[in-house]
């Protein structure tokens, strides 16, 4: 009833009522599309870092969206296009693998080539920020790792998979992720971090297989494939 009256009342022309309907529909879409992302506040010069411990050849996708506090309206508004975020990703050896500036809304992707702790750091780039009276920036962040980063709709369209095929494909991806993690932990658990391979393992070429002899209860023989003489490069 109230909606009907609202539509009839607002403005002398039908277009005004239409505007109200469009606004309602947009709000509808907003709620429908909203995945409910986590957000936090970051200061003007603050740098926030996140750690992802991942096996090698794992894809990580990060989506973020920023909002700036508007003192006049006393609420958070989508940040101005000039305000961007600087994203820096470091691999376990502290080497920078991604250092890019994105806009107020962005998506960054990287694939790990070395297993271990990767560090993702975010900080805002704008100096014009101080115009907003030293306010806080609200950052909505969503980081997806490995299998979760897959866009199944895209995979289904590209490979023309049926529903059942897509489900099985998801299971295959999950199992692959589990295997990668197990291999990573297997080496980690035995060797810890750092350190060189025992002399008994002579690498003829990168990726060579190595028979490592471990004394546990009796003897436990295992084969490791190593890219270099360091334990961390074995899987």
């Amino acid at each position, binding site marked *: 009833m109230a909606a009907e009256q609202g539509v009839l009342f607002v403005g002398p022309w039908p277009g005004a009522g239409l505007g109200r309907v469009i606004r*309602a529909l947009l709000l*509808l879409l907003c*709620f429908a599309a909203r995945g*409910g992302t986590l*957000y936090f506040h970051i200061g003007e010069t603050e740098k926030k870092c996140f750690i992802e411990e991942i096996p090698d050849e794992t894809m990580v996708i990060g989506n973020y969206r920023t909002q700036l506090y508007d003192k006049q309206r006393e609420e958070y508004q989508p940040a101005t296009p000039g305000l961007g975020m600087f994203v820096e990703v470091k691999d376990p050896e502290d080497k920078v693998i991604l250092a890019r500036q994105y806009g107020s809304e962005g998506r960054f992707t990287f694939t790990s080539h070395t297993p271990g702790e990767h560090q993702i750091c975010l900080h805002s780039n704008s100096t014009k920020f101080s115009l907003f009276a030293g306010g806080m920036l609200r950052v909505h962040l969503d980081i997806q790792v490995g299998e979760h980063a897959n866009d199944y709709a895209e995979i289904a369209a590209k490979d023309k998979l049926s529903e059942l095929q897509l489900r099985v494909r998801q299971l295959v991806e999950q199992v692959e992720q589990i295997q990668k993690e197990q291999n990573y932990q297997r080496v980690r658990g035995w060797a810890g971090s750092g350190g060189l391979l025992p002399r008994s393992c002579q690498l003829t070429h990168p990726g060579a297989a190595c028979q490592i002899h471990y004394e546990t209860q009796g003897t436990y023989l295992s084969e490791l494939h190593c890219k270099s003489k360091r334990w961390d490069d074995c899987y």
Partner: protein
Amino acid sequence: MLRPGSARRWLAAAGRWSCRLLALLLLVPGPGGASEITFELPDNAKQCFYEDITQGTKCTLEFQVITGGHYDVDCRLEDPDGNVLYKEMKKQYDSFTFTASKNGTYKFCFSNEFSTFTHKTVYFDFQVGEDPPLFPSENRVSALTQMESACVSIHEALKSVIDYQTHFRLREAQGRSRAEDLNTRVAYCTCLPRRILLLGAGRGGENNS
């Protein structure tokens, strides 16, 4: 061209239906998802995270401290009205499940304010509602076939395997952190007395000659 009367009626109907749909969407818990984040918490710092949750959604917050000091942190979870749903001090690991009693922004904070010089690395997993379905049109009325049901069961089982792996990895990281910590302390404890002894012996030698 539409007559003004019918246009108005159409607009009125559209307005009514969009409002009803909107109300329906607000009531029904949305697809949800999970956020798994590992972050650094400096000493004397507090870090808060927020999320908008619809009423009736079942949520789980799980956290674990990986590195730093005594591997403990204060955690606090509040509902949109500021009521404290969960509050624990100096906890190493915990898991808390709750159902959102009202719509709004839920806030959870991790505090390292009791520590004067140790940074902490904290992992948390905040699960809101169910994972989004594989297919957008998942709300189909027809039942899943046997094959599809089997796939769903396997998917759920694999999810728990991945969950166990995550916990194993975190525990390994924590163990490694403790070992390295201990190693540093032992090296310091043996190195320093030895150095003092050598210095003392050197001085003694000088005095004698």
